[in-house]
C-alpha cells in the first residue's frame, strides 16, 4: 500500500534544522492513531533549495539558530507556497526576542509575504479535532520558559483564505519531541493539534 502522506522536515543551510528529530515520528504516529490517512512510517528530510521539496506539499521547519535563506531557498519557498505547498514553522526557542523568530519571520516576509495573526476561528482549529481557544498551549509556555509568554495566536501567510506558511512561537518542537512509544504514559495526547495541521494541509 503506497502512502498518501509523507512527513517532510526542511533542511536549510544556515541553522540547526534537525533540532527536533523525534517530532516527525510522533506526528506520524498520531496521524495513524486517529485517522485513516495512508501515512508513510518514516519521514524524510529535504533541502529547501532542492526541487525534491515539491514532492512534499506539507513541510516542517524548526530550529534555534538564525534562519538566513539563500537566494535559491527563498525562490524555492516562494514557488512552493505559490503552487499550493504549506510550510509549518515552529520556533524551537519559544522566544519572540530570539534570533530564530527575528530572522525567520524576516526571511518569510521576504520570500512569501508578511505574516499576520491567524484567527482562532480559522478552519485549521476545526479540521479534525476542535480547538475552540485556538492553538493549544505547550508546557514550555506554561512553565514560563523562553519569552515567558503564552501565545494566544499563531501567525500565518495566507493566500486567499488558505494558509501558505503557518508559524508558531509555541515551541511544539519541544512539546512533541519524544518517542511515540511514550505516548501511552500521557493522559492527554498533546500532539492532536499536529493531526489538525496534517488534515488541513491534505484537504484544504
Amino acid at each position, binding site marked *: 500500500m503506497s502512502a498518501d502522506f509523507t512527513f517532510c522536515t526542511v533542511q536549510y543551510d544556515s541553522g540547526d534544522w534537525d533540532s527536533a528529530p523525534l517530532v516527525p515520528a510522533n506526528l506520524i504516529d498520531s496521524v495513524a492513531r486517529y485517522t*485513516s490517512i*495512508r501515512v508513510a512510517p518514516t519521514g524524510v528530510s529535504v533541502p529547501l533549495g532542492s526541487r525534491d521539496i515539491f514532492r512534499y506539499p506539507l513541510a516542517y521547519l524548526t530550529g534555534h539558530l538564525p534562519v538566513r535563506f539563500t537566494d535559491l531557498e527563498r525562490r524555492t519557498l516562494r514557488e512552493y507556497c505559490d503552487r499550493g505547498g504549506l510550510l509549518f514553522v515552529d520556533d524551537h526557542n519559544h522566544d519572540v526576542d530570539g534570533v530564530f523568530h527575528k530572522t525567520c519571520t524576516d526571511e518569510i516576509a521576504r520570500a512569501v509575504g508578511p505574516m499576520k495573526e491567524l484567527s482562532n476561528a480559522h478552519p485549521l482549529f476545526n479540521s479534525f479535532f476542535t480547538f475552540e481557544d485556538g492553538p493549544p498551549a505547550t508546557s514550555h509556555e506554561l512553565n514560563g520558559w523562553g519569552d515567558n509568554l503564552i501565545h494566544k495566536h499563531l501567525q500565518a501567510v495566507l493566500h486567499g483564505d488558505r494558509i501558505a506558511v503557518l508559524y508558531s512561537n509555541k515551541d511544539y518542537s519541544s512539546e512533541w519531541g519524544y518517542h511515540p512509544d511514550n505516548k501511552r504514559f500521557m493522559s492527554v495526547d498533546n500532539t492532536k493539534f499536529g493531526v489538525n495541521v496534517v488534515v488541513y494541509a*491534505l484537504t484544504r
Partner: protein
Amino acid sequence: MRVWAERALRGAAFALLAWAMWRVAAANTVGRAVSLEGATVDASWPRLLSSSHDAAHLTIANGLPADSTRDVLAAFAHAGVRMTWSGPSVSAVALSVERVREPDQSLLMRVAGPGRVVVRDAASMLDSAADASGGITVVSAGPQGMLRAVGSSATASVPPPAAMRMRTILVLGRASWETKFTVAALEEQGWTVESRVPVAPGTAVTTGARQPLDTAHYAAVVAIDSAAAELAAAIVPFVRSGGGLVLLADAARLSAFTAVTPANVGARQSSAKRSFDATAPLASLNRTPLTLRDDAVSLDSSGTAVTVAARRERAGRVAVVGYDELWRWRLEGGDDAVVAHRRWWSRTVGAVAAGAGPATNASEGAPVARWIDALGGSVARAPSGAPSVPLPQWLLPVLCIILLAEWGSRRTRGAR
C-alpha cells in the same frame, strides 16, 4: 424499273427531309430555352416569367447563388421549366460551433473545407488554415457576433450558441494530495465542486451540500480512488442517465465500475524518467497501462500507450485516466504547470460532463447537397442559344446514301 426505283429513292429523300423539317418545326412550337448567368440570375426573373421559355440553363462562376435564388429556380423546375446548370466544381465549407463544456464556455469551432479557410468573427480574423480539408478545430473565449468560415468559393456562418448553465462536479477521494489538488484545479478553473474526503471512519471533510446524484444537479463525478466505492452503486445509474464519470486508475479497479470503464487497467508502471522533467511533465509521471474496450476511444496517448480513454455508456460518458499522481505536475512542473494542470483537469472533466448544449451548424445547412437536391447535378456544358432539336443521328447518312444511289443510277444509265 430502274427509273421507278430512282423516283422512289428521290421520293424517300424528300420524305425524310420533310419529316426532319416537321420535327424541327414541331420542336419550335413546344417552347424556347434561356441562358442565365450566375451573377445576374436574380435580374433575369422578369425575362423568364414574361416569356414562354420551357428550359433554362444557369452558368455558375463563383460559388453557389443564395438560398433564395436556389428556391426560385427550384420553383421554375417544379412549374415545368427544364432547369439545368453548369459551372466549375462547387465546394462547400462546413462550420459547427458549440460551447466548450467548461466554466469559461469558450466557443469551439469545427471547420472543414477544401483549400484555405479563414475563420472570422464580426470583428476580425480568428484563425486560418492553408488546407482545412482534414478539418480544424479552433477554440476561442472571446469571439464577437456572427462566426464565419470563409473558403475559396463558399462561406458558412453561424451565430454563437447561447451560454449554458454549468452544473456541479462531485469529487470522491481519500485524503491525499491527488484529491486535494484535483479539487483545487477544478475550483480554480471555475467549476463548482462538491467533494467528500474521508479522513477517519465516519469522519469526512466535505465541500457543499450533497444533492441527489442525478444530472439535474451534477455534471460529472471524478472518482480518484477507492473512496468512490461508497457511492459506486449510485454513480453507474447516474452515468447511464447522461452524467459524466472520470475514473483514475485506483477507482477504475473497483468492481462496481467494471461495466462502465472504457479500459481495463493494468499494474502501475514507473516512469522511464528518473527525476521529474518539467519540460515533459506527463511523461515524468508513473502510469497505469490501459487496455481499451472495443467501444472506447483514446483521448490522449503517449507513444503507443493510451493514457486517457473514453466511451459512451448509454446517455452518459466515462473517461479513465492512466496517469498516476497528477498533482506532481502542478507542484514539480515548469512555470506554467499550475495553469496547465488546471486546464488539463478542466478539459478532461469537460469531455464527459453532462449538460452540453447542442452544436449550432452553419445556417445554410449543407448548401451543395441542397442545391443538387433542388436542381439536379450539373450538365457537362452550357448549351448555346436555343435548345437543340433532337434529330436522329442516322438521318444524315441515310439521306446521303439515298441521294448517292439515285444519282449513281442515273449517271450509269446515261441520264443527266
